[in-house]
């Protein structure tokens, strides 16, 4: 791909050498993204387990539990206990 212009050849050389470093930066970014994704998946699973534990605990107590949001809308309700 050499041209008659040494300066153009030099610029092409710089750019193509940079390309290797850019590829290496991209690989590092991809590895970081992969690690972040794995950490997110672990956290999601932890939260899911925790939520399940709370639901089981609340459902097993004798009283009914109702939670509402600031507008008074019911957001959580355990099964109504038998009278």
């Amino acid at each position: 791909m050499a041209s008659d212009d040494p300066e153009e050849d030099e610029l092409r050389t710089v750019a193509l050498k940079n390309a290797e470093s850019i590829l290496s930066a991209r690989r590092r970014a991809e590895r970081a993204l992969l690690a972040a994704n794995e950490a997110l998946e672990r956290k999601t699973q932890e939260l899911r387990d925790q939520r399940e534990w709370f639901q089981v605990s609340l459902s097993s107590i004798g009283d009914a539990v109702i939670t509402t949001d600031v507008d008074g809308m019911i957001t959580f309700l355990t099964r109504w206990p038998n009278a």
Partner: protein
Amino acid sequence: MIPTEPIGSIPRPTKLIEAVSALGDGTDPRLDPLYDEAVRETIEQLEATGSPVITDGEQRKYHNFWTYSVHGLANTAPDGFRIPFAAGHVRRMPRLTAGPFRYKRYADAYLDGALRCAHVPLKQAVISPSALSLLYPPGGIAGYARDEFIDDLLREHETEVRRCLQKGAYKVQIDFTEARMAVKLDPTGNLLHSFIDLNNLALSRFSSKDRQRIGVHTCPGGDRDSTHSADVDYADLLPSLFELKVGSFYIALAGEADRVRVLKMIRDYMKPEHRVFVGVIAPIDPRIETPEEVRDRLLEAAQYIPIAQLGATDDCGFSPFSDDTSTSRETAFAKIRARVTGTELAGKLLGAG
């Protein structure tokens, strides 16, 4: 309404150019009052065109859109690479001589004064990481590896864009005029892909919401009514260009010999989340377009680009290099007025008015 935005630069007032020339350095603090006046006057004139979005005309960018962020760095030398233009003249860029690489100034500094004068949304153009990547010399720098430079460059660019967004820039436009030059240097396309990769590495540091406020501008590189890469076919560029993770694209079109061919390529490669601002004004053409010409160019574009994704812009800034006097300020403002009026006419006809 069809959105319309300028690209960036407006020719500097003659007295500013003369004062810069007399002092020999455009960053001399004695120039500040002249810069302030130029910014104020440019914004007034741009607002008078009815432009819904403006810039500061890049009045303070010295010496050009490419090197403003590194001009005056102690670790650069003036003998970097050369950009040859079709008219025969060349522009030479600086070369990095030592690490670490840090910007001398971030473009958000220009927003400070401009935002005080502006009454409509203001956008800010910044240079792409791929353009600045060419500062690193072919033989390397002792004690400062190319990998380190690329990391520093990405961080500096991210900082600049973030600062512009935080200060309230309506849009941040990344100038990517070296895209076509990359194809010229390496027709295999590998270099262009590498540039796209580098720019995407920087863009991926932003949220998708931020990226909606970020755009990319591409053109054949204008200076003194000439270009450096007009001979590069858009077919070699557009498929890769639309891989960039931004919301808006500003694509030179008015100066193209076969606009319909380019529009068909845009239609084929743009994505649903993209807004494409097509160039309807050719800054390197001294003739002032009429609003009707602009209208017709947009009606033509609307046959290929959904109206909800269409915008209008200029092909390029009017003087990306601060000493360029090939276009007068009056001509630049008249052309912008034609763009604004013509875009309104097209919007009404297309039911978007």
